[in-house]
Every structure is written in structure tokens, then in C-alpha cells.
């Protein structure tokens, strides 16, 4: 089966500061992964790990410093608008920021149809819009002529997905789609992704820091830390039996909605985050409970452990490296 999207050694380096003192922050460092058709792939990590930067590079909002992005085996040109030519769409974190508060929401729908030449008449357009709205559980009548402020966050996020579906995309990039939606309404959005995958064969790149929903909805997952990818594989293996110390820490720190399974032990936190970006070697070395000397000097290579990709020196001796 051909890969839908292939990202190879994607890197983005930001240069901050004035002419006198510049620091270079590698927001994304040699990120590589691929997404298959009809698959939900989660890109997870805490804030500042580079997941949003990676998404922006795929969409073309950010220019990669190096690396390639292939769609269906073909390279994407610099000025090519992936959403226009390649059937990739996106939805964003803040449902109220996604739409212009001074315009009615339906305008975006009509404009999308017009710009992509998907409807011949207004009647046809309304029909298409209604169809997509029903797919996300809403109806045209309660949607037409309303401003973003008249909907709830959950509804707006679903409207956002409906808009993305108008162009019948093959890949939907969802950047933290439920982090600003109430816990009680998250499931409805996340279930939608499942539905889209199963019924329409749409792949979803699900970017999140919420591992619980990532576990629930994704097929595969990649964990990122300070720009590096540290572990990648099937969501069952990565989250139920984490190998990388950071993934373990992340997994343990998630507050389970179950009072009988509280946290055990305490955790050490960093005081100054910026320092971690500038380290040589493995970026987690400063906090890792199992750190070794080599960790501070050398970035670990990609290792295949039990079908999961791990970048950690702990496993170098165990299995064959790629």
C-alpha cells in the first residue's frame, strides 16, 4: 500500500536574537514518519516539542530548513499549496479563533466551494454544505447566517471539520483539536475522526498533548520531545508498554480519571526550558532517571525494538540498529 504522506528528516531551525547574540533553536530535528491511507496517526508531546512546527511545515506555512515531504510518492514543490492541489486540509486548536468573529460562519463554506469550483449554483452549494454538516452531526438550518459567537466551542470545532471536509480531503491535519473543548464534549469530536476514517477513508494527523484521547482514537503514534522524535509505533505498544524513559514519564504523569490509580512517586521539573534545546546529545539527558555518559554526548540512532522505533541508548546493545 502506498504511503499517503512521507516526511523525511524534516528540520526547522529558528534563529533568534539580534546581530550581536543569536541563538539557534532547532524546533524540529530530523523528524521522519509516514502516514498511510485511512489511518489516524498521532503526533504527541508537550508544548514546545515541535509538533505544531512540523504540521506547519507540512501545510506549507513554514519553510523547512532541510528535509523532504512526499505526498503519494511525489515531492511537494515550494510554492505549491497543498490544500489546493493535494487534498490536505487542517483544523486548529481554538474553535473561536478559527473563524472571523465579525463574519458569519457560512461565508467560509461558500467561499471554499467557489474557490475550488465545487458547486455550480447556490442551490447545489447549500446541498453540499448540508451534506457535510450532517456528517458532523449538525444541520444547515441551525447554522446558516450565524456568527461564531453564537455557537459553543464543541459545535464550532465540528463546523470547522465540516468545512475541511468540503474539498473531500484525503488527509486532515488536526492541531490540538480538543484541547480547548470541554472534557465532556471531547469524545464527540474525537469519535468523528474515527468515523471519518472508517466511513470515508480519510487519514488524520492528530496532534495533541492529551495521550488519553490519542490512545483512544489513533492507530499509530509518535512521541516528540524538544524537537526530537523519541518513540514511534502502534499506539497499543507505545502507550501500554513504553520503552523510552520520556514516554514512560509522560504515561505515568497522566492523571487517570480513576481515584484508585493515583500517581506514585514524585517528579522533577526543569526550571529553564530553553537550555534543553541547546544540549548536545539526547535532549532528555538532563532529566532522565537512567542517564548514561553517552547520552550527553551523542544523539541516539533509530533503533527497532519489538516493532517500535526508539531513539535511546538504553537499547543500543539489545537489538539490531537500522
Amino acid at each position, binding site marked *: 500500500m502506498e504511503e499517503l504522506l512521507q516526511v523525511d528528516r524534516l528540520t526547522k531551525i529558528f534563529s533568534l536574537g539580534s546581530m550581536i547574540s543569536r541563538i539557534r533553536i532547532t524546533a524540529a530535528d530530523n523528524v521522519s514518519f509516514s502516514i498511510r491511507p485511512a489511518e489516524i496517526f498521532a503526533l504527541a508531546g508537550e508544548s514546545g516539542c515541535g509538533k505544531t512546527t512540523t504540521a506547519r511545515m507540512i501545510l506549507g506555512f513554514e519553510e523547512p530548513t532541510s528535509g523532504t515531504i512526499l505526498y503519494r510518492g511525489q515531492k511537494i514543490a515550494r510554492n505549491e499549496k497543498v490544500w489546493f492541489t493535494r487534498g490536505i486540509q487542517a483544523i486548529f486548536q481554538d474553535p473561536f479563533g478559527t473563524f472571523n468573529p465579525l463574519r458569519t460562519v457560512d461565508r467560509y463554506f461558500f467561499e471554499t466551494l467557489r474557490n475550488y469550483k465545487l458547486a455550480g449554483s447556490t442551490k447545489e452549494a447549500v446541498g453540499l454544505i448540508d451534506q457535510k454538516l450532517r456528517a458532523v452531526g449538525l444541520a444547515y438550518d441551525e447554522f446558516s447566517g450565524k456568527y461564531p459567537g453564537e455557537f459553543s466551542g464543541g459545535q464550532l470545532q465540528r463546523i470547522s471539520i465540516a468545512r475541511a471536509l468540503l474539498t473531500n480531503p484525503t488527509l486532515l491535519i488536526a492541531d490540538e483539536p480538543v484541547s480547548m473543548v470541554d472534557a*465532556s464534549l471531547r469524545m*464527540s469530536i474525537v469519535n468523528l475522526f474515527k468515523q471519518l476514517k472508517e466511513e470515508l477513508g480519510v487519514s488524520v494527523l492528530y496532534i495533541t498533548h492529551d495521550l*488519553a484521547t490519542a490512545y*483512544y482514537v489513533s492507530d499509530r503514534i509518535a512521541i516528540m520531545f524538544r524537537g526530537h522524535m523519541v518513540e514511534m509505533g502502534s499506539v497499543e505498544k507505545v502507550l501500554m508498554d513504553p520503552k523510552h524513559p520520556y514516554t514512560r514519564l509522560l*504515561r505515568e504523569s497522566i*492523571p487517570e*480519571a*480513576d481515584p484508585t490509580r493515583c500517581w506514585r512517586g514524585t517528579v522533577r*521539573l526543569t526550571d529553564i526550558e530553553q537550555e534543553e534545546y541547546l544540549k548536545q546529545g539526547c535532549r532528555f539527558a538532563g532529566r532522565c532517571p537512567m542517564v548514561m555518559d553517552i547520552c550527553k554526548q551523542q544523539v541516539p540512532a533509530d533503533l527497532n525494538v519489538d516493532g517500535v522505533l526508539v531513539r535511546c541508548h538504553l537499547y543500543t546493545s539489545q537489538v539490531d540498529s537500522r
Partner: protein
Amino acid sequence: MSRTILRTEQLKAFYVLDLFGTQKVIKAVNGVDLDIGENEVYGIAGESGCGKSTLLKALVGAIEPPLRLIGGRVLYQMVGEEVDISSLDPEEKRRLRWEYVSYVPQGSMSVLNPVLKLKETFRDFIESHVSGKTGKEAFEIAREHIVRLGLPPQILNAYPHQLSGGMRQRVTIALAALLKPPLMIADEPTTALDVVVQRGVVQLLKDIQRTLENTIVLVTHDMGVQANIADRIGIMYAGKIVEEAPTGQIFGEPLHPYTCYLIDSLPHFGDKATRTSVPGSPPSLSNPPDGCPFHPRCPQALDLCTEQMPDLKYVDHSHKVACWLVGD
């Protein structure tokens, strides 16, 4: 249950907005009865826009226009007698805050003065609330306090912007606990923080509560955090408390339909079975439904539910529910 430290009687606080001739009343807190005891962590959970933040503001007496206290009372149990917070004058209220009850608002990192080093903020704080301490003594008190809570003492020499978000949050909480207040109120202290940082903040709160044996009232919509720290939880919906019980019972035997949906919708590791969220959308606080505010979304709603709001009643000695379907 232990002795009461704070209670409310049918507390009502509305936002009254007047814009271009039209008046809009937002019934953020619409008849809330609370009874919070000593030495416990009381969690208030609910969707955004259910009135939790307004409830906290009302509890500390921070009621300013357009927010108005419409009815009910907030009573603090201080040195043997009950004190109605609205009977205090501004100076007494000021002393009440931080010494008796400290309030950590949402986005509390803005509580720290960005142009002062942390040690100066701490010193100012101590000097304005504790008399007779020199600068040096104040600094020592602050240092001891920070170290006892497990935070690195070097941060006192830093400016707020030099610290990470999680550290700032913990410092703010440390500041709130400095004068050993019997009551600490925190509004969404872990929202917008990373998972690992969140764990550190919750750990800190737990440590403080264990050491001082005081009461913490914690508002958050994150049920995972509630499960980890709260002793009792009050579920808030459309400005009212609809269920209140010890944490184990809320998660194990929820009784109110809303709570049931809420608990069912939470994802768990190791279980990929389909879950559903609460149907419908949160109600508008400016135009809440008649009777029980949850009835438009409740699949088991009776006719009675559309007419009359059920009272919050005890179902057993520690579990209260406001629902016509539960109880007699």
C-alpha cells in the same frame, strides 16, 4: 465529616450587562449551597461556562460590577463564630484574603510582578501582612518556605519571565501558602500546563495540604486531576451544584445523569471501546431552561423536570444529588 470552615446559603451572583439599551443577565451562580470542612480538598468540576470561576469570586468576596450579589450568603467560620463576608469592610476583606483565605486565580502567573525579582515580591508580601519583620528576616522566611516545598531556592533571585510556566505556577501557589491560610482556593491551576508539569503542580498542592492540614477548594474541568487530589467533588452545571459526594463515589457510583455521562465519557488506557460524550450543548446562562437546567439534554427527563428545579438532597450520609429521578 469534619467541622465546617466555609459554607454558602443559596448563593446567587449574576452578571448584569447593559449594552446599547438592551439588558442581559447572566445567571452564573444560581442558588449554590456549599458546606466545606476543615482539612479536606474539595473539588468543583463542570464544563466551561457553568459558573465555577464566578462561584470562586463570590466565595472570596471579589464581587465587582458587572458582577452583583443577588442573594444568599457566604459564611466563614472564624475563631468560633460565623462571619458573613459581605459584612466586612474593605480593609477587613483585604486582611481576610491571603491570611485566612488565599485565592489563586486562573492564569495566576500574572499575580507575580514582572519587574520585581521574586524575593522582592515575597518580601513585599510578608511586610504587608506580618508586622515587625526586617527585610532580611522576611527573606529568610521566604527562603525556608520555598525550600520546604521542594523548590530550588535560587529562583528567588530570578524575575518571573525567566522561569518556565510550570515553575511560575508553583511559585504563585507557594506565595499563596506562605501565611499558612486555613483555606486556599485555586481556579484551574493546571490548565494550559503540560502533563508532567501539571503533575508537579498537583503534587505541590497535595504537599501543602498535608503539611498545613488546611482546606483546598480546587476548580478544574479535568476529571483526572480531580481524581488524584480531591477528597470530595461537587459537580456544577448551569450555575448550580447538581451532585456532591466523596471522590470514590462520584467515579464509582454517579447518580445524576450529567455526572453519569461525564464519567462515562472519560477515556481510559487499555480500553479502546467507543465512548460517547454528553449529548447536546451547554446551556446559555443568560437564558437557562426552566426547571432542571439539564433537562434539554437528559434522555430520562420527566415532565416534572421541565417545570421545577430539584433540590440538592442527601441520598446517603455523604452523597447529595439534585435530580427528580433519584431518591424517593
